[in-house]
């Protein structure tokens, strides 16, 4: 049973690490601001859920699990709000969403 839980948590942690890494590479390589936001959101949702779930399984049913659940809740509630505010502010500043081109190089304020 212990081994099964360990394997499950390792799988979750590794998958979380892969998602985080993919999101990081995407945030560096994507062509413009909105596509980079899309890549960064992968690390905020899937990466966070998988990594926290992985360490939660390691913790078992203790106070630590409650704290981890609180951290996950805060991350999931608070990450969409800055994303929305960022998109809104960029849109108001006149950066047009144009996937498929590096257009915001010329539009930079």
């Amino acid at each position: 049973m212990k081994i099964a839980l360990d394997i499950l948590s390792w799988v979750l942690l590794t998958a979380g690490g892969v998602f985080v890494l993919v999101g990081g590479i995407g945030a560096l390589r994507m062509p413009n601001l909105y596509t980079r936001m899309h890549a960064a959101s992968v690390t905020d949702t899937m990466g966070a859920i998988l990594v926290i779930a992985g360490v939660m399984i390691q913790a078992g049913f203790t106070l630590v699990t409650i704290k981890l659940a609180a951290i996950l809740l805060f991350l999931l509630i608070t990450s969409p709000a800055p994303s929305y505010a960022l998109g809104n502010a960029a849109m108001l500043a006149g950066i047009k969403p144009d996937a498929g081109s590096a257009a915001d190089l010329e539009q930079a304020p």
Partner: protein
Amino acid sequence: MYYAVTLALVVTMALALARAVLGPTVYDPVLSVTMFGTKTVLLLSVIAFLYGRPDFLDLALAYALINFIGVLAVLEFFRSRAIRREQERQDGGSAE
């Protein structure tokens, strides 16, 4: 096992910093800072288990809240600046 996740998180933080330095618009550093903050919270949670010290989780919790407020404050500043500039441009346009 925790080492692999820690490594992935640290590499991603380095990539986010690179984007913050390269970023062509002012919004790229803000995006990087949000990403960096989330990664810091995750890194603190993993390090708590890597070193076997659950106190780090309290730090992670506090950091999650501080990060949220900080990013919203910066974005509100940029947003009001964009609106003000737009208004000034329109006023200038109508005056001519």
